[in-house]
């Protein structure tokens, strides 16, 4: 549909200057445009009235205007058209450039009816011998304004379409995630348009029509209970205006969720039976098996009686990992033992999921089995591990009394047997140092001052520890 433009009064909105950031305004250029429009035979709303309107309606942004305010400008300023504009580019540095966009809005239906873009650089205006060549962006401004207004429309084409739904000032649909049977609430605030507020209903999938209560000040509320079945439920508002007109608009959707999230806690450490052992610190990586939005989480360490020793909580997504240094909330180290690491996770509908992992604090040195046997001219050191934590490293060093190294041996697995030739002792003492380290980092060290003597003792005292069959009067 084509229509002739009869409007003559133009409200020139302050021109936004993006070269000074999002809050930049160029009043000089605004005045220049107003002057240009007046020269085209159009009436321009005075600057003071324009500013008063902005203050009255608390309009802070100058680059754009919503439909509601465009319609109000017609009512309150008598404007038929509104001119909005942005200086996209203003560079004084050589060669210097200026960029401008303008939008013209019609106030009777709040539609953009014309737009213009112009970019100009001083490099575009190079003249022979530099005659009439602009030297600053200020000199480029009138040229850009004239160029852009060259396409100002005499007639404006009108495109048929739906007017945007502008009466809603604010909308609140809470909660967006809910358990079955829980209460939901929708609040709407409308902009005062006309004399009588409309009747409002909500169309909710699976529920039907829910009337909204009007508070008499253009505010509406409605509440209802979530259906039993899990799923997504769209909500639509239906406006019945006093004129008989009915309008619908989509407000959003809410999710009914009765299933707790599936969460796991993966521990990095040494598995001992049903627990994971550590000495200094343990890392736990949480993972949602079916990722979904999380509202909050809590992790705690409990002893075997269920008493919480330390806990931490947070909102939003789970951290990538947790670290426990084997301490209580007060900072003191916990005793060796088995503890429970409990992770609780709540989804947006407040369904709670729990993952429990047993952790074992092991700080005792490896329990060493050391036996020395003599067989003829050879001695054998038998090394073993009595503890449940596997050994990661062991070493044995045998030295003579004068400090000479007689034998060294090392390995990663136990039990092990190390052979030493007694002849190496040359009738002197042999000193032996044994060191063990388990995979958690606990270590044990043992020194034997006289290895030969120990070997002799063990070979002669074979019945040591054997229960005496007769009573000894002097012991």
């Amino acid at each position, binding site marked *: *549909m*084509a229509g002739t433009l009869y409007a003559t009064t133009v409200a020139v909105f302050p021109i936004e200057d*993006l070269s000074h*950031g*999002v809050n930049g305004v160029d009043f000089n250029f605004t005045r220049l445009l107003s002057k240009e429009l007046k020269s085209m035979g159009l009436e321009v709303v005075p600057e003071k009235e324009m500013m008063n309107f902005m203050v009255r309606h608390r309009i802070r*942004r100058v*680059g*754009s*205007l*919503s*439909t*509601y*305010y*465009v319609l109000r400008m017609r009512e309150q300023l008598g404007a038929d058209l509104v001119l909005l504009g*942005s200086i*996209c*580019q203003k560079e004084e540095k050589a*060669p210097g*450039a*200026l*960029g*401008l*966009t*303008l*939008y013209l*809005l019609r106030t009777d239906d*709040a*539609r*953009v009816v*014309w*737009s*213009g*873009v*112009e*970019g*100009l*650089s001083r*490099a*575009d205006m*190079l003249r022979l011998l530099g005659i009439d060549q602009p030297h600053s962006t200020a000199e480029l401004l009138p040229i850009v304004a004239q160029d852009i207004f060259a396409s100002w429309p005499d007639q404006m*084409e009108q*495109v*048929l*379409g*739906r*007017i*945007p*739904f*502008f009466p*809603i000032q*604010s*909308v609140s649909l809470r909660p967006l995630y809910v358990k079955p049977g829980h209460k939901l609430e929708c609040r709407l605030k409308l902009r005062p348009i006309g004399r009588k507020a409309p009747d409002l209903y909500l169309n909710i999938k699976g529920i039907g029509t829910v009337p909204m209560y009007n508070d008499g000040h253009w505010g509406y509320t409605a509440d209802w209970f979530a259906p039993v079945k899990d799923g997504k439920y769209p909500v639509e508002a239906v406006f019945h205006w006093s004129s008989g007109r009915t309008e619908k*608009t*989509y*407000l*959003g*959707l809410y999710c009914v969720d009765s299933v707790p999230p599936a969460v796991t806690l993966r521990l990095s450490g040494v598995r001992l039976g049903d627990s994971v052992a550590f000495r200094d610190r343990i890392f736990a990586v949480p993972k949602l098996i079916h990722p979904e939005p999380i509202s909050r989480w809590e992790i705690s360490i409990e002893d075997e009686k269920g008493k919480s020793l330390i806990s931490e909580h947070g909102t939003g997504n789970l951290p990538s990992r947790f670290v426990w240094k084997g301490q209580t909330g007060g900072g003191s180290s916990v005793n060796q033992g088995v503890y429970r690491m409990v992770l609780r996770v709540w989804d947006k509908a407040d369904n709670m999921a729990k993952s429990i992992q047993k952790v074992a604090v092991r700080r005792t040195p490896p329990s060493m089995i050391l036996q020395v046997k003599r067989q003829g001219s050879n001695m054998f050191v038998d090394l073993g591990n009595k503890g449940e934590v596997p050994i990661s490293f062991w070493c044995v060093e045998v030295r003579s009394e004068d400090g000479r190294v007689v034998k060294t041996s090392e390995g990663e697995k136990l039990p092990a047997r190390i052979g030493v030739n007694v002849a190496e002792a040359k009738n002197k003492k042999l000193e032996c140092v044994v060191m063990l380290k388990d995979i958690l980092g606990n270590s044990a060290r043992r020194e034997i001052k006289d290895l030969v003597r120990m070997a002799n003792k063990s070979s002669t005292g074979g019945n040591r520890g054997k229960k005496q069959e007769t009573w000894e009067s002097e012991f």
Partner: protein
Amino acid sequence: MSIRCIFPVIGAIILVFLYSCSPRGATLQVLSPLPKQEICRVAVLPFTNESQYPLGGLIFYRVFMAEMIRTGHFDVAQEGDIRDIYDQIKLLPGQQPSIEQIRLLGSRLGAQAIITGSVITMGEQRQFLGMNPSLAVHVNILDAHTGKILWSTYHHREGADYRKVMHFGMVNTVTSLAQHVSQEILTLWFDKGFKGCEK
């Protein structure tokens, strides 16, 4: 070598030269066909800025929207209405809306299609007698009812691409380059069937 042999060689060189100097077009990826009903009203959502150019996203957004209005084939939703709904749904202009938010924006603005985009690079390089601006953008057309991306377009241009002879035709400003890029994208869309309203 006879003169007859020289002509094809020169011809081939000229063809190669012309091909290398020919302007690069926008790349269009059709992910889904356009809806069967006429797309009359569109909402152009604030573009994101991935470039280092200050407010590059906003500059291209303003120019692209102005060019879309200038075609006269589209009823373009007002930026102020879009920002109003952004405030209501607590969405920052730099953030990409979710599918659900796209559907809500489409319904509230009465739009059949939603345009989203981002400025990937925007810059200017000083040259003899002028400036060579460059711009790379990514613009998508989304179905306002489903929130799904229908068409995805990438376009990259420099001011020097428009040079005809010597310095003539050279685009010296980011604004003018954004205007050219917008026009080329809209022309491509029009040619491929995104034609807007029949008047």
